[in-house]
């Protein structure tokens, strides 16, 4: 088991003929992901290293039976690409595009909720999702993810930051701990999938025994997650929040990473998570150490 994706997930890449789409799409395929097609308007009928390219998502879905899409197009085109995928019946969309205006993101999110409630959007501005050994959609380097191990305890990862997602995968690999699924939800103000969506799935996933959560300053997603954990998550968790020393009022690289009006501080988020019984590390390595302790205690 894994969450959101598995070995049967069939993926198309919107923007497969572009630099990013081609590079990561082919890497995902090389990892073993079923990359069944690409979409670039005007380039239908061509192929990228044997992967057929279509003019529209609906044509690609009709021809390949794809149920997931990987969107790697520029910020101007991404909102329309997301809605096109949803309209074509795609159930799971991963959008790695960074730099989409917040107004567009808010509109797309609420349009999905209203018109395509069965479609899940991961991102934008996220590294994607990997279920080690089964499916990798996005830009994560597959080799840094430890395979889940039968008969042992495996960990689910959910993170707002790309490089810290890799860091978390790496910390677990160093300790030989398997990963069920690793989800990067992205650092934008309106993520399609949030911590709670992932925590709910991990709680219900029989292959996931414990969860690492990586948050950062800005917004209140971690505080809301803490409330959810208190009420619904029984699996043990460790966490790390980036940005303890970030100055207020400055966007720290990610559009959503900003402390404003005294809200969204790392300390507030750590306190909330500790209050929900999560073991919170002061850096990614400590979060990894805490997870190793959790796994050891699970036996």
């Amino acid at each position, binding site marked *: 088991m894994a969450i959101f994706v598995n070995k049967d997930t069939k993926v198309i890449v919107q923007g497969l003929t572009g630099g990013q789409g081609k590079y990561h799409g082919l890497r995902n395929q090389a990892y073993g992901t079923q990359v069944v097609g690409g979409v670039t308007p005007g380039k239908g009928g061509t192929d990228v290293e044997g992967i057929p390219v279509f003019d529209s998502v609906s044509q690609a879905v009709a021809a390949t039976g794809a149920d997931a899409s990987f969107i790697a197009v520029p910020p101007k085109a991404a909102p329309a690409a997301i809605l096109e995928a949803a309209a074509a019946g795609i159930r799971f969309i991963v959008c790695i595009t960074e730099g989409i205006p*917040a107004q567009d993101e808010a509109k797309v999110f609420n349009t999905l909720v209203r018109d395509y409630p069965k479609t899940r959007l991961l991102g934008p501005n996220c590294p994607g999702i990997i279920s080690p050994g089964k499916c990798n959609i996005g830009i994560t380097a597959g080799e840094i993810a430890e395979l889940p191990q039968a008969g042992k305890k495996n960990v689910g990862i959910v993170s707002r930051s790309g490089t810290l997602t890799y860091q978390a995968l790496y910390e677990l690999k160093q300790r030989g701990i398997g990963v069920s699924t690793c989800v990067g939800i992205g650092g934008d103000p309106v993520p399609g999938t949030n911590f709670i969506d992932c925590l709910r799935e991990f709680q219900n996933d029989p292959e996931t025994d414990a969860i690492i959560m990586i948050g950062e300053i800005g917004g209140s997603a971690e505080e809301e997650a803490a409330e959810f954990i208190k009420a619904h998550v029984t699996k043990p968790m460790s966490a790390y929040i980036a940005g303890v020393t970030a100055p207020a009022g400055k966007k720290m690289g990610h559009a959503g990473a900003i402390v404003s009006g005294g809200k969204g501080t790392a300390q507030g988020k750590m306190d909330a998570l500790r209050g929900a019984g999560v073991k919170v590390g002061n850096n990614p390595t400590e979060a990894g150490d805490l997870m190793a302790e959790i796994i050891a205690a699970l036996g």
Partner: protein
Amino acid sequence: MDLFEYQGKQYFARFDIPVSRGGAATTVDEALKVADASGYPVVVKAQVQVGGRGKAGGIKLASNAEEARLHANNILGMDIKGHVVKCVWVENASDIDEEYYASFTLDRGAKKHLLMLSAQGGIEIEVVAEKDPDAIIKLHIDPVDGLSPAAAHKAAVDAKIPAQAVAGVAKILVQLYRCFTEGDCDLAEINPLILKPTGEVHALDAKVTLDDNAAFRHPEWDEYRATEELDAREQLARTHGLQYIGLDGTVGIIANGAGLAMSTLDVVNQVGGTAANFLDIGGGASADVMAAALEVINFDEKVTSIFINIFGGITRGEEVAKGIVEALSRVTLKAPIVIRLDGTNAEEGRKILADAGIPESTLISKPTMLEAARAAVAISNGK
């Protein structure tokens, strides 16, 4: 990007939001010209992006040209909490009957737009929220539907805006919402929104934060960018297209990825150091990017050690190493580097660094983030 008040008012005017007659000035003579054109009495207001300018003497009323000259002369060049006033906004002084508050933001939790409206304006909204939370009404707006004139009218009534001002306030709410959405604002705030004895409602102040991600469809923002308050290091970083934020510490930071860069600041702090900056070099750390990053760090006189923290995901270790070696041949550093290189092809990268014959006084390699942070902080603190 935060706008100055005068820019915010100019931005409001694009969306037909009524503001006082006035203009911006950077010299006393200009200020006088604007004052004459606006009609006395005028208010001379310091343009700085920091609160409390009124208390600091940065807002003055002038009833004639002589007073306007005096105030403009005093305020231009004034230091308000470390911000030197380079520009004043001069406008016709308004008679005020009442002061309200209105703002639009994105409520990230609810994923909807949020209108906050209060009949108690003129003071900070946080103060109102604390003293009398019921005096603020909060209305969530679905971005797909937008704000209808009827909903704006109801909001004004709900906020207990007096009957004679409801129509005027509702009209401005719709205009301000258009400014917020079509104008791609993160924040569009009017405080105070005033009712004049004549019955007119208008914006006496303007606080606007623009969404940098939307700059591609707003060529008119270029002029705002030119006046942004950046320190010299941030200016240099911008010319290189780097994601850089200047801080006050002594350990220069270079990392790939925003999260890792934030985390690097935290770890340096935890082991007793202080970061000089936030710098995210992003995915493909080419030699050019690395050289530019080192140049910006090198420019900062406070920096006494440099911590390069790279986790190779997409970025490959050997590329980073080649970038550093090449960068070192172009830039003469004033402080030594401590590097932690991990992830994809990290070993190849470390080998390239080791084989490059760089002396240990210039570059030290450490296997983990914590060890590297300790080494960088020890050097920086002179231990």
